[in-house]
């Protein structure tokens, strides 16, 4: 069947299997028809979870297996949805320790991409909270991997994009919270200098992320709204909310029923949107209570929002520039985008904390993420952004990628060689591959 990532680019015809019991999954591997890739909700943007020969849908493995109410350790199958974790455990006072921008992702997918959230500068990526995982290896064997058992395989599976084996089960430490509310503070910053200084002086904040007006130029280059957040304590809620601290107003969900015409998102509409959004941010209350859903998952309220970008889909550009060169690097990226007049209204800037890992995306510095509709102009623009990223010592987020060149990845990331060697020696290279791993020769 036709499959794609969230960006709907590329769309590829794949043989899709959805086993329900472990023996069936092992049998699929044992057939020896060549490499396979595991797929969760397909929320990576590009071709990370696509393999035309065989893609294995893991959402049939979605059971919670055990929970320790003292430590907050949840054991579950890899196809479990983050949304289900929240639905079951937030009412009991637990929240995911790290969350990406959508809750419609699987546990296994989050581990494979070693996702980060708005608290990366404080708490690091999801891998920090994974106690162990069970991995189905190239010969059908199941290995318990943790910091004690098979530690190298464990560390390489975090951020390994499903290329070290198939994650079957994992144990994730949840975070105790007193309410389902976030105290959000909005800092309006007139330029890049300002927002980066504000990030640096807000390192104590649990959550921080900035929306950046990527079409602003000159003096206003990098003008931003910086959103800081803290889990609200129960005593910080007004009485009417404190009685039921985990119950938040339900939202009406919307859905885009079809792809909008591709030309609808152009420099004028995006510029107008960005200007309005920035002005609205300036007028908004600087501090207010926001429920967890609106705070962490505003886009989940609009199902199929990728259709905003037209039938050809969207590509996301996300890189991280190391701290030392972040000021000039991010400025050059923004100038390149503004010069091209190809902005996106979902442009996000985020300070990442230090992280040492085998193949995960984050490192200490600033990450910039932007969406573009797929067309020849934006694809060419992204190559210029690649070059700027390389010049400043940055690297790229594979979970967002659909089009990076192998040479670019190699130039950006010295860890590629070691990842390839590991795949070759362990045999994972023969058993697990995606279109992305093929394109990048991983």
């Amino acid at each position: 069947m036709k499959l794609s990532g969230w960006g709907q680019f590329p769309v590829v015809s794949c043989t899709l299997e959805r086993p329900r019991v472990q023996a069936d999954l092992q049998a699929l591997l044992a057939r020896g028809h060549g490499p396979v890739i595991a797929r969760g909700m397909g929320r990576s943007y590009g071709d990370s979870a696509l393999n035309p020969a065989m893609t294995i849908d893991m959402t049939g493995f979605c059971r919670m297996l055990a929970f320790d109410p003292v430590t907050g350790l949840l054991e579950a199958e890899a196809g479990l949805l983050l949304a289900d974790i929240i639905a079951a455990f937030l009412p009991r006072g637990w929240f995911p320790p790290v969350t990406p921008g959508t809750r419609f992702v699987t546990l296994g997918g989050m581990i494979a991409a070693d996702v980060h959230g708005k608290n990366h500068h404080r708490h690091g990526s999801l891998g920090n909270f994974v106690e162990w995982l069970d991995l189905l290896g190239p010969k059908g064997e199941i290995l318990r991997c943790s910091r004690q058992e098979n530690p190298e395989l464990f560390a390489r599976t975090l951020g390994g994009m499903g290329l070290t084996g198939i994650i079957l089960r994992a144990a994730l430490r949840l975070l105790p919270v007193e309410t389902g509310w976030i105290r959000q503070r909005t800092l309006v910053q007139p330029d890049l200098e300002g927002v980066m200084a504000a990030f640096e002086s807000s390192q104590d904040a649990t959550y921080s992320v900035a929306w950046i007006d990527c079409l602003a130029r000159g003096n206003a280059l990098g003008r931003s709204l910086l959103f800081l957040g803290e889990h609200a304590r129960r005593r910080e809620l007004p009485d009417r909310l404190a009685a039921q601290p985990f119950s938040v107003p339900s939202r009406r969900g919307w859905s885009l029923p079809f792809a909008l015409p591709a030309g609808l998102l152009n420099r004028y509409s995006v510029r107008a949107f960005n200007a309005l959004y920035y002005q609205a941010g300036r007028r908004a209350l600087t501090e207010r209570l926001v429920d967890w859903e609106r705070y962490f998952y505003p886009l989940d309220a609009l199902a199929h929002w990728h259709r905003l970008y037209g039938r050809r889909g969207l590509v996301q550009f996300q890189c991280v520039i190391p701290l030392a060169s972040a000021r000039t690097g991010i400025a050059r990226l923004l100038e390149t985008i503004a010069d091209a007049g190809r902005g996106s209204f979902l442009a996000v800037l985020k300070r990442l904390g230090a992280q040492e890992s085998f193949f995960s995306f984050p490192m200490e510095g600033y990450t910039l993420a932007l969406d573009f509709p797929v067309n020849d102009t934006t694809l060419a623009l992204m190559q210029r952004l690649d070059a700027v990223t390389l010049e400043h010592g940055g690297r790229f987020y594979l979970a967002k990628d659909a089009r990076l060149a192998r040479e670019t990845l190699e130039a950006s990331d010295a860890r590629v060689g070691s990842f390839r060697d590991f795949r070759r020696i362990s045999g994972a290279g023969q058993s697990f591959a995606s279109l992305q791993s093929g394109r990048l020769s991983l």
Partner: protein
Amino acid sequence: MSGGSVLVLGGSSDIGLAIARAFAAEGHDILLAARRPAELAADCADIGLRHGVKARALRFDALEIEAVESFLDGLEELPAIVVCCVGVLGDQPLLEQDPLAAAGVIRANFEGPALVLGALANRFEARGSGVLVGVSSVAGDRGRARNYVYGAAKAGFTAFLSGLRNRLASRNVHVMTVKPGFVATRMIAGLKTPPALTALPQEVAMAVLKAVRRRRDVVYVRRVWWLVMRVICAIPERFFKRLNI
């Protein structure tokens, strides 16, 4: 918890598990009865964790009719609601040649389910309350060449449930017959079924939950099946016998 516990017979089936989850989400404790309860440990853990209810698996074999009373005696308490999803489809061509295999299908779809619900009915009648849900089949509405062994057994089960309902109507014991139509389960994996007539197990579960609340008697999960079966049943036999449907 609220509303008492729910016993699902045939608790390892896709429909049985979906029904268990739907009732657990409403706060009911769950008992899953199946031939191999050890295989349901993860499902029990999942149901318990998601919904904050108690969920346990028990050994039960609908074909062991002599063990029914002792199985019921072994329950800690008599459940408030019992849903019977026991059944096997069988391979019709094989069943035409192998009387023992055919007997097995008839027993698993009719004799076993009917007798255990009959035994439960007596206990519910004595208590003066309870709901019995039998998952039967549209295949029981009219015998067809394609699956008449299965269909005949389901017809028997449907008739049994109807009689039980009639007997207990004045005793505050409600008996419900569910005819799901095609359901995307392991039972029909590999069969090509029309999407408009094929429900998901979760859809069957929600329909059962809703129908139990409304105390409905006979439920076609997708309403279109009611119409389809009325048409099929209205075809005169001398035409029907020549059809291949």
